[in-house]
């Protein structure tokens, strides 16, 4: 058990760690924080201050401690002042100042200051950086830069119309896609360089990124197309033509013969690429709401806390799945039509989204000048629960039950309610049962998918049965393990229509057997 005030974080380090010299680095087991790490909680203002490290001699500020140290050397300090104090060697971890945030908890602290700064901005900050090619916005400049590099740079298109930004997801999809069956017939083995197909073909502003995964270095690509440098603006004449040539390939996903008949195709590609650039963004965000699940992952995987998609989805959840499905099966022209129409919407929604969900940083700075209100501790909550006694909670939980009941025939919950009042032991159990009912009933409102998820197949577990089930616990509690609970269950049991509950569960098949097996 961790006392939240003193614990540190779990495995430190984000990406690659520097090579360990001799001693084997002790790995923190997952979920077990390093108790020696110092937990630092900065206020938002301090966190975002760009020049935290100040030289004591000339008061010049620096973003990084290393820079400050380098600068200090320039002052020709006497030996003593040059030494760093020993306590700076201590491992530091940082928590997010936002109280509800998952990283507010010290056992979820992040190991470096830059990381927590970026997290804070991404999650709780305003997205000031906007991509000019697509509609994505970012709170952190480096995220925006990273995105701009790849935005529109590589697309892979499957015959079914789905677009991918990542090659491995494209390959995996393609292997199982229905469109492949027809493709095998068209395959043309005359295409000499096998690696030319499906290689990302790129517009002129491709950043010098390395070739995609799985193109193992031992097998250098036969065509220069896979190597980014030839595709820079200053490339010689031959590679650009091949680059453009193979740019035809991913978009059409065909093994085209390498003949000269590509000029029209080439022009078409060049015309189309701008659209293709935009479409992955919108199309994929549309696809989030459908279960095709194809491009969404790829486009959004490169984002960190983009709210654009959510904006689109929230307003158009019902429309888009259908339109996406249509889109996936029609020509690109309709893709464009759909996407261009949705683009302005997405931009507008993104802005709304940003302001409503994320407080601006400035706002937070004002609010956080004093320390934020601490969350209720677990102990305090339990004390409340005890004070309440579960009986008094009935008012709220019954209301919650009301939420559940409204979806179901009202007779049984009412009956249950009355009996619950009558039976003395049941008041305790009602808290239990009601709590349970609420836990499951909660899902009833979330739409059919959620209902189904939470409650299992409707035939077994409709909302009505949920409440009964929980109180009908007693029915099967004869084999119950813990004395206390089973006593309570029995008291509920006496007050309920056991038969009805049993019938609700298909003859009680589950109960006895589950009881036996679950121990």
């Amino acid at each position, binding site marked *: 058990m961790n006392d939240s005030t003193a614990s540190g974080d779990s*495995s430190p*380090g984000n*990406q690659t*760690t520097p090579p360990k010299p001799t001693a084997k680095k002790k*790995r923190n087991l*997952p979920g077990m924080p390093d108790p020696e790490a110092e937990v630092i909680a900065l206020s938002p203002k301090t966190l975002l201050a760009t020049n935290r490290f100040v030289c004591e001699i000339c008061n010049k500020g620096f973003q990084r401690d290393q820079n400050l140290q380098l600068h200090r050397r320039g002052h020709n300090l006497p030996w003593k002042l040059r030494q760093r104090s020993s306590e700076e060697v201590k491992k530091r971890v940082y928590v997010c100042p936002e109280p*509800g945030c*998952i990283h*507010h908890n010290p*056992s*979820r602290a*992040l*190991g470096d200051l830059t*990381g927590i700064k970026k997290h804070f901005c991404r999650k709780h900050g305003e997205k000031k950086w906007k991509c000019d090619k697509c509609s994505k916005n970012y709170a952190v400049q480096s*995220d925006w830069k990273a995105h701009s590099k790849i935005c529109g740079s590589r697309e892979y298109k499957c015959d079914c119309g789905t677009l991918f930004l990542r090659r*491995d997801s494209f390959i*995996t999809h393609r*292997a*199982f896609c229905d469109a492949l069956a027809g493709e095998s017939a068209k*395959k043309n083995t005359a295409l000499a360089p*096998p*690696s030319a197909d499906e290689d990302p073909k790129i517009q002129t502003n491709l950043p010098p990124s*390395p070739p995609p995964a*799985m193109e*193992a270095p031992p*097998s250098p690509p036969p065509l220069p197309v896979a190597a980014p440098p030839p595709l820079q603006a200053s490339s010689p004449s031959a590679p650009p033509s091949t680059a453009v040539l193979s740019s035809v390939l991913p978009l059409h996903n065909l093994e085209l013969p390498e003949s000269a008949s590509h000029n029209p195709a080439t022009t078409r590609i060049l015309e189309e690429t701008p659209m293709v650039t935009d479409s992955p963004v919108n199309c994929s965000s549309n696809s989030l709401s459908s279960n095709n*699940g194809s491009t*969404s*992952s790829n486009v959004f995987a490169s*984002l*960190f*806390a983009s709210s654009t998609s959510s904006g689109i*989805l929230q307003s158009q*959840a019902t429309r888009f799945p259908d339109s996406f499905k249509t889109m996936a099966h029609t020509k690109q022209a309709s893709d464009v039509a759909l996407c261009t129409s949705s683009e302005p919407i997405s931009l507008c929604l993104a802005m709304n989204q940003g302001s409503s969900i994320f407080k601006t940083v400035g706002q937070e700075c004002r609010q956080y000048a004093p320390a934020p*209100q601490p*969350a209720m501790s*677990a*102990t305090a*909550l*339990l004390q409340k*629960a005890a*004070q309440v006694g579960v009986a008094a909670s*009935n008012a*709220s939980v*019954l209301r919650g039950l009301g939420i559940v009941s*409204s*979806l179901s025939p009202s007779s049984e*919950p009412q009956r249950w309610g009355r009996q619950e009042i009558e039976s003395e032991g049941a008041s305790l159990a009602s*808290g239990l049962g009601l*709590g349970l009912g609420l836990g499951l009933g*909660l899902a009833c409102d979330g739409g059919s998918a*959620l209902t189904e998820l939470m409650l299992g197949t409707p035939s077994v577990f409709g909302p009505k049965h949920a409440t009964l089930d929980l109180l009908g*616990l007693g029915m099967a509690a004869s084999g119950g*393990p813990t004395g206390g609970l089973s006593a309570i*269950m029995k008291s509920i049991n006496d007050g309920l229509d056991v038969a009805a509950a049993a019938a609700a*569960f298909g003859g009680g098949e589950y109960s006895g057997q*589950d009881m036996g*097996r*679950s*121990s």
Partner: protein
Amino acid sequence: MKAELRGNSSSISLQNPSLFNTTQSSISGALKECVGSLDGACIEKLLLHFASALESNDVTLAQQVMWVLNNVASSIGDPNQRLASWFLRALISRAARVSPPTINFDGRSALQRRLMTVTELAGYVDLIPWHRFGFCASNSIIFKAIQGFPRVHILDFSITHCMQWPTLIDALAKRPEGPPSLRISVPSWRPPVHPLLNVSSEEVCQRLTNFAKFKDVPFEINVFEVPPLSTMDAGISQLGSSDLYDLFLNQLNPSTLELRDDEALVINCQNWLRYMPDEQKGSTSHDTSCRDAFLEIIKDLSPCIVTVVDEDCDLGTLSLASRITTCFNYLWIPFDAFETFLPKNSPQRIEYEADIGHKIENIIGFEGIQRIERLESGINLSKRMANKGFQSVPFCEETVKEVKILLDEHASGWGMKKDDDDMLVLTWKGHNSIYATAWVPCSYGVEY
């Protein structure tokens, strides 16, 4: 006191303020505060209280915890709330012992809750690097290990229905020396966990075969039957029985697998070992766990490489309280990851979270053989492999580079750690999530 039935069901969240209006204001206030600034540490403590309540039969405390949790959890709230709602469900399932869990882990019924199409599954494995990381690392290792062998046979033990292989097939197709002949064998039995497909394994195999043909890779794939399992009726077969595992293990022999001498054998364990029970079956030192037996068997098949990828967390034989905390401190990761790029009410996200909810339910709600999620961390797995006579194969620079490239293409929270060259770990905001390792039997003489 009357049960007031509400006319409308529009309020989804229990955090609806109107819910608290009729109660004592102090309680509603307290809960509102908690809800307004919900904290992972708070939930974790509540869970621990619950665990200790169960262990000490303190019913009152258990109820209180559930009441509190119920009022703060929400399956469509922020990640903490979502995770809490699934934990609550698992706790209820456990406490009551009778509430039908969303799935039965004895192999029956309600698991067919959600089936994906193959293309949906293809998207699923690429949504976050949770699976793709392992695929990439393993495929890269395999690619390197089979160089020089004209014929390759892969024994694929995984839960992702061959999603790993298209990229390997693609890479093999592009080798300058051309692809080897590739054969893949998958067992007909797999643990009853998500992801689930709406098509048969044969259909998956057919599509993969088409793809390989398309890529000009000589390819064969077959499902090796674990006969008694497949003929067992869902109502009869019981995952809980250790006989089932024995039957499975019995099928892992050269003749059933049709091993051929001229093939390089690759054994791929992808999110698999955690489903092999690790409890000692008997009391004598002779008796080993199913997991150990599995490892011994595969070692005796003389593979040229064994890849093991799994979730980096220890949830095997810990006490309930430890499991609850450890599980909570691990599974927040996918919830947090989904939060960063799927909207709050995305059905896809809710489904994925529900999958994890099942996992939680199994981990917390069951004991013994029905608790099929027996996660073991990379460190402990490595010790186990060493004990069983395997030596680790270090990851070469190329593999590390490929994995890095992969992660660069995903959201910036994902990173990677390399532990002493022989284990790669996927991290989310610095926290370990998945490990990838590679092994050969100690007697195997090849140096890498």
